[in-house]
């Protein structure tokens, strides 16, 4: 590896690590600002000795700096603390719920790609026509609708009125259809808009004209030449959106009573279970950083100049 490459990768890692550290510190701060957790657990009427014992047990009587370092150590060894509400390890609860959320995000993202990319390509290749305007407005509509409301309306139509699909819970593939559809709306719109923008940039490049001039078919020009060049930003946004959805699916999971991470977060908040809230926030930040690294790696694979 060249020195400049080492430098670049090193710099990127350092800045990612710095943001991660700030994010972790903020999450810690949020947890500490929540007041006395012993009051939440034991109730306001508990005798002081009992609260003192619990404080000791939770390590809250230690200096804040020691608590902070312990917390950081925990994060990097995979120990995200204990839930106040479920008396379980936060890490294992997150691990239990993650598959459900992954299922939902995976299905939603697949749907978003399947519809979003063709929609964006359609708009870009017919720029300025009614096709373009229609597809673009549809995409903007997808970014303007409150997704959970869209989900509610799907429930009214397909579960309440028509009775074709179940309205909530999970279990069968049928249960996945409505939540995944709801989940896909926002990333679909985002992907369609981005695809349109990068495709129309790519189509404006001189090599496209020269490819056409060499008699290469329009379809091949669009997919082989323009699309491969437009793919990088799309890939980036897909990876980053996945990160956002993994921790941000709260409202959708709530609408469908989907037993994923979002529901867990909501329960944690309702019961003021701050160690669990903090653990989920930390998990989200870790996911984000890992996905960002993934994006960097993808960039260097697709675009050899970066290497």
């Amino acid at each position, binding site marked *: 590896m060249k020195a400049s490459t080492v430098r670049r990768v090193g710099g990127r890692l350092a*800045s*990612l690590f*710095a*943001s*991660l550290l*700030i*994010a972790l510190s*903020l*999450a810690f701060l*949020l947890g500490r*600002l*929540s*007041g006395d957790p012993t009051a939440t657990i034991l109730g306001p009427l508990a005798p002081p000795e009992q609260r003192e014992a619990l404080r000791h047990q939770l390590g809250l009587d230690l200096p804040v700096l020691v608590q902070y370092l312990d917390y950081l150590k925990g994060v990097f060894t995979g120990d995200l603390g204990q839930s106040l509400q479920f008396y379980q390890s936060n890490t294992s609860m997150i691990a239990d719920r993650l598959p459900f959320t992954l299922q939902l995000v995976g299905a939603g993202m697949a749907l978003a790609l399947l519809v979003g990319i063709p929609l964006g390509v359609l708009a870009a290749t017919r*720029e300025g026509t009614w096709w373009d305007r229609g597809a673009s407005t549809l995409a*903007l*509509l997808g*970014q*303007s*609708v*409150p*997704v*959970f*409301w*869209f989900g*509610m*309306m799907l*429930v*009214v139509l397909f579960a*309440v009125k028509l009775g074709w699909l179940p309205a909530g819970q999970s279990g069968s593939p049928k249960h996945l259809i409505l939540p995944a559809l709801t989940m896909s709306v*926002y990333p679909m719109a*985002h992907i369609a*808009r*981005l695809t349109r923008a990068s495709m*129309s940039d790519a189509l404006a490049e001189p090599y496209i004209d020269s490819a056409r001039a060499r008699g290469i078919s329009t379809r091949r020009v669009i997919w082989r030449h323009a699309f491969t060049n437009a793919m990088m930003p799309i890939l980036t*946004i897909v990876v980053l959106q996945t*990160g*956002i959805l*993994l*921790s*941000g699916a*709260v*409202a959708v999971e*709530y*609408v469908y009573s989907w037993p994923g991470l979002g529901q867990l*977060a*909501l329960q944690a*908040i309702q019961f*003021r279970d*701050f160690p669990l*809230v*903090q653990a*989920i*926030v930390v998990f*989200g*930040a870790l*996911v*984000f*950083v890992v996905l*960002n690294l993934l994006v960097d790696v993808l960039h260097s694979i697709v675009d050899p100049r970066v290497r």
Partner: protein
Amino acid sequence: MSQLELDPVTAAPPPPRRAGRRARTSVFWLALPLAVTAVAVFVLPLTGLLPERGQDLAATRQPPAFLAGGSWAHPLGTDKLGQDLLTQFVSAGRLTIVIGLVGALVAIGPGTLLGLLAGYFRGWVDRVISILIDAQLALPFILVALAIIANRGSSLPVLFLVLALTGWAVCARVTRAATMAIRERQFVIGLRAAGASEPRIVFRHILPNLAGTIVALGTLQVGTAILVESALSFLGLGVVPPMNSWGSMLASGQDELSQAWWIAFFPGLAITALVLLVNLLGDALLTHHDPRKRRR
């Protein structure tokens, strides 16, 4: 949960007449319905045309007037306590619009300032602010919002704090990129040669040239603020009774979906239409100020 993906916008001389006029027309036709809506929700309650507030347990869950069983006494129907939904809808709309506007302001204010400083001064200022931006964007923002609200309780100031925290980073990133593009322009060097101070260059020259971008950014941020508010209120963590926004109306409609779907339908439709218009307006403004996009 809108992510703004904006290109760094370069300051441009005002567009040629023709394109300028077309952009202005489309901005006008987008702004008009927004203005009408805003005026309507503020003026209608003063006219006395709206049905009375109070409960009417004899007329609960009435459908809207245009459905079987509805009546014009309650054009949008009633909720489970027999309260008129149109009256609620109008007053909720007022709060939603106020939250959208204030929520955008509290985000673009600090965001623009920090982006401006980072983009102009570069060096360590830029490094610190960029790390803050990255850290903010690294936190799963809906969870942060939830954590703050769970901590501090639901109130309007907390809601604005959340909207500021979740919105500033995107504004800062876009402003930073745009500032970096402008500071390389030769007129900045010319001003420096004339002995202009750095604050003068930043606030008297770079900021005015960013005005278009900032207005567009702010407009898009209004849409984001409304969506975030609606999601939080829907989860019972934003606007809570006795106050009412379209988002909190969705929350109360959630339990009634199988019996009275219209309670949730109209506020959601209104949010969608409002945010769509705001986004179209923001896009039009952005295109108006970005010469590269206007070309297309």
